[in-house]
């Protein structure tokens, strides 16, 4: 029998429930408000009182309203049909809701239960299987969606029966497996999993050893993110956080992309709805929407569901990872999630940490980032979840709890800078403060040696150093005046401008420059190195400035020209002429 209770207290979306029987931490319950059922989650228990956070508005709720506990935690439903869907933070399908307004207590099924899927078996009767082993697959659009032994199955099972290839609905039994005690269990295409628990059905989680390309020079060349790695993008408003994230979503070399719009503007999600079905995935030629799933809890949607939304997204990512796929999770913005935690902690009258955030904020963030990673499956294949979150620091000040906690958890740091944005130097990623710790991984360095070239990392570090020296020199020129420093200072400065304009800056709205594949990045870096190594004879700083401006313009035109086209080579020759005539 279900545990029941009655409402005894209400402060905004924190409700106190006196219950009979037993409840569990994070258990889901439904509060009955005149026949409308409001979903809520237990976040604290004290004696016979459970404190629950309600995922909807509590307007009209009364003391004495009845509550039913569900004996499970917040779960997502996993199965074919997740891809290309648009869900809210609790995995309700937003596309099948009829009303213009989100109706309180309206919960829609994330999967189409009537649709027929083409199923092909992979396992055979008599096979010994464990959780997450592949029993068969269905075609989910282009994607071979594996039907797995449910993650909740413990121990070894024997496949007793398996349906033949053919069309089935998600709820049809496709296999029967027998456990060690001889008991039979039916397996359908659908399974459930609690969002706050990481899916652990894999053999091992090695250190990341490959790069995931994004087509962005500032990331791939200078601070690459590993497949299965983690990164974050902090920045004040108006610095291009969302543009950068959308650029990554459009171009990253991933099989499946989860976009978690967490507490941000609804119009930005509308942009994805409008554009992604039209835009083409540069790696496969398919429409972008065919590899994208959206989890959308915009800033005006209930706060408690905002916290759930990032977990919902992560769990779906882990599900696809178990199919041996490369998954990328983009969450915009994790600060809103942290703020949701702060609001609840505040209502529960917990003692606050820095800036009134809960004291365990840091551990919550790091355990979430820890769910990303590349994993080796039982069948020897690998799958990965790469996670990039944005952070919206209050007042653009990076010394605040969310940024600091995230910095401890994420391995790549892409700091967006107001100053660069003001100068329209996009992407406004600070070239000096940003870092990728993966460049310190011997596995990654080896990988780059093999896939790019032998001294790639050394070249990149050398260029970075030139840039840093140039920025330092720029300050001296500012203080002492153009004539107050030797011409060699100007040359150093202009080398850094060359690196900045040609390699770091990239036009996300230009059809060609937006996406720069790795071999092209390599060539551009090579050309920049060539210019930097060239011995110019300058008598005045004006000469130096004009020469470098000319070179920058030619190299930028190359960035805007189609790779290896006549025009591209024409500009490359122009560069040769400039250098030869000097």
């Amino acid at each position, binding site marked *: 029998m279900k545990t029941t209770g009655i409402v005894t207290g209400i402060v905004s979306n924190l409700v106190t429930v006196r219950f009979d029987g037993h409840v569990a931490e994070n258990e889901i319950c439904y509060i009955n408000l005149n026949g409308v059922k409001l979903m809520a989650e237990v976040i604290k228990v004290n004696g016979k009182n459970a404190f629950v956070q309600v995922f909807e508005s509590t307007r009209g709720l009364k003391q004495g309203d009845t509550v039913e506990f569900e004996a499970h935690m917040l779960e997502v439903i996993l199965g074919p049909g997740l891809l290309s869907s648009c869900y809210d933070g609790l995995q309700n399908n937003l596309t099948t809701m009829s009303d*213009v307004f*989100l109706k309180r207590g309206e919960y829609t099924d994330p999967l189409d239960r009537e649709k027929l899927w083409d199923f092909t078996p992979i396992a055979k009767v008599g096979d010994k299987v464990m959780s997450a082993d592949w029993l068969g697959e269905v075609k989910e659009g282009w994607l071979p969606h594996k039907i797995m032994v449910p993650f909740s199955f413990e121990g070894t099972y024997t496949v007793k029966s398996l349906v033949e290839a053919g069309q089935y609905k998600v709820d049809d039994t496709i296999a029967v497996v027998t456990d060690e005690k001889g008991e039979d269990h039916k397996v359908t295409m659908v399974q459930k999993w609690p969002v706050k628990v990481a899916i652990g059905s894999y053999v091992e989680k090695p250190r990341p050893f490959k790069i995931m390309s994004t087509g962005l020079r500032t990331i791939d060349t200078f601070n690459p993110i590993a497949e299965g790695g983690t990164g974050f993008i902090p920045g004040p408003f108006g610095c291009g956080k969302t543009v950068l994230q959308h650029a990554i979503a459009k171009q990253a070399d991933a099989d499946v992309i989860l976009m978690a719009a967490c507490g941000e503007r609804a119009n930005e999600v509308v942009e994805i709805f409008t554009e992604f079905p039209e835009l083409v995935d540069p790696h496969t030629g398919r429409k972008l929407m065919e590899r994208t799933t959206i989890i959308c809890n915009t800033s005006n949607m209930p706060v408690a569901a905002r916290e759930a939304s990032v977990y919902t997204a992560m769990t779906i990512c882990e599900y696809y990872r178990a199919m041996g796929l490369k998954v990328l999770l983009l969450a915009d913005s994790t600060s809103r999630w942290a703020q949701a935690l702060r609001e609840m902690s*505040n209502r529960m009258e917990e003692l606050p940490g820095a800036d009134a955030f809960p004291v365990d904020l840091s551990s919550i963030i790091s355990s979430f980032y820890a769910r990303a990673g590349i994993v080796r499956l039982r069948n020897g294949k690998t799958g990965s979840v790469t996670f990039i979150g944005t952070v919206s620091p*209050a007042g653009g000040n990076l010394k605040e709890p969310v940024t600091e906690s995230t910095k401890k958890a994420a391995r790549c740091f892409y700091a967006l800078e107001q100053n660069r944005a003001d100068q329209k130097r996009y992407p406004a990623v600070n070239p000096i403060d940003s870092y990728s710790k993966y460049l310190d991984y011997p596995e990654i360095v080896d990988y780059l040696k093999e896939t790019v070239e032998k001294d790639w990392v050394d070249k990149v570090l050398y260029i970075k150093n030139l840039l840093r020296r140039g920025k330092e020199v720029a300050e001296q020129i500012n203080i002492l005046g153009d004539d107050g420093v030797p011409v060699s200072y100007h040359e150093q400065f202009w080398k850094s401008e060359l690196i900045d304009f040609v390699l770091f800056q990239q036009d996300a709205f230009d059809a060609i420059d937006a996406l720069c594949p790795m071999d092209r990045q390599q060539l551009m870096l090579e050309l920049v190195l060539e210019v930097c190594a060239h011995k110019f004879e300058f008598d005045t700083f004006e000469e130096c400035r004009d020469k470098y401006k000319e070179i920058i313009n030619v190299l930028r035109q190359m960035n805007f020209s189609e790779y290896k086209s006549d025009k591209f080579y024409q500009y490359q020759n122009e560069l040769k002429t400039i250098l030869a005539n000097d």
Partner: protein
Amino acid sequence: MTKAFQRIYTQLEAITKATVALRAQGVSNDELATVAGRLAQVVKIKGDLVTLQVFSGTEGIPTNADVLFFGEAPSLNVSDELSGRFFNAYGRPIDGGPEVEGDHRAIGGPSVNPYKRRQPSQLIPTGIAGIDLNNTLVSGQKIPFFADPDQPYNQVMAQVALRADVDKIILGGMGLSNDDYLYFRHEFENAGVLNKIISFVNTTDQPPVERLLIPEMALAAAEYFAVDKNEKVLVLLTDMTLYADALSIVSNRMDQIPSKDSMPGSLYSDLAKIYEKAVQLPDGGSITIIAVTTLNDGDITHAIPDNTGYITEGQLFLRADTDSGKVIIDPFRSLSRLKQLVQGKQTREDHSQVMNASVRLYADAQNAKTKLENGFDLSDYDNRCLAYAKQYAIRLLSIDVNITIEEMLNTAWELFAEFFTQAETGIKQSLIDKYWPAKAE
């Protein structure tokens, strides 16, 4: 207002400056009540102890005050009768007219399903070049003016509202000085557009906590016209900083732990709930929100403008320009995130190039100015930039400009031709060939 089932209580257990608490049964969250005749709302229920926020303050309320519960959340009667009327924060007429009859709707209702939204795509012309040319507004957008308290933001907003091509203008005035309230009223009457205006006003002489109702009242009316009537609605909210101040008063009285700048931790969500009501609906209706956020000495890192910037689609910065003696829309710090949805699509093809060139040349003028201040010599180009900047500020950036977008573009071309060579503008040659003005002589 008295109804048969109304429950009356007469024993208060606690009184603070903004709240009272009493023991009562069957009370629902967010429900309205009156305490000694003053409007109040349920904000906390703990067992049978109910805490009410009294909007007009608790001065003089005795422990034996009558408390009447209404059994419903704050609401507004919506119908076409709202047009042309002035209301207070509770939605009661303050213009001497009759109560509005119509559909009784709770304010602060649910949000629009993001999947049902459409991408904003309709230009809203205002006649002000600092807006139309550089920071074009789009219907369904939400954008605040960031202004210091001494700047004429209410006048600019009234101008924008009166020139915008919309079906309804809804004014939500929070902590409006009585003079500004009369100014708005006078402007609306003079313009002869009273029939498309609806106002909800809380003036400075009224209790600050009442302000909390204003945005939701205004937006409930807006949703009626945009959703039910498919109309284009423009909502003006002034001043959102005073709204946020009222939020911090209430949270303080409820013993909540403040976060940055003594604002409540929920400030972001509270503001987002209002601003995100801006929407382009599938059936043609739209809600556009233009707000005012007053700044403390231009400080945009304060929690109120900072959170606002993360929520809204850009901001319009007012600045007094000493070179031209005009109040201008600052082209550097202002931004309309949605402008590219209409520029060159609903305006002339040269729009975005002209905008970028004119702002870039203005930036060159700023550099020249810095050089001048630091005692360096100016080149001929620098001098021309400075002369251009002054004319650009007077003829285009100033808030008293009122011309069509076509005229703005032509003006910009005239300025280019007057001060620069074609190459210095860096505009695409095909556009220069088409639009560069012929020499006058």
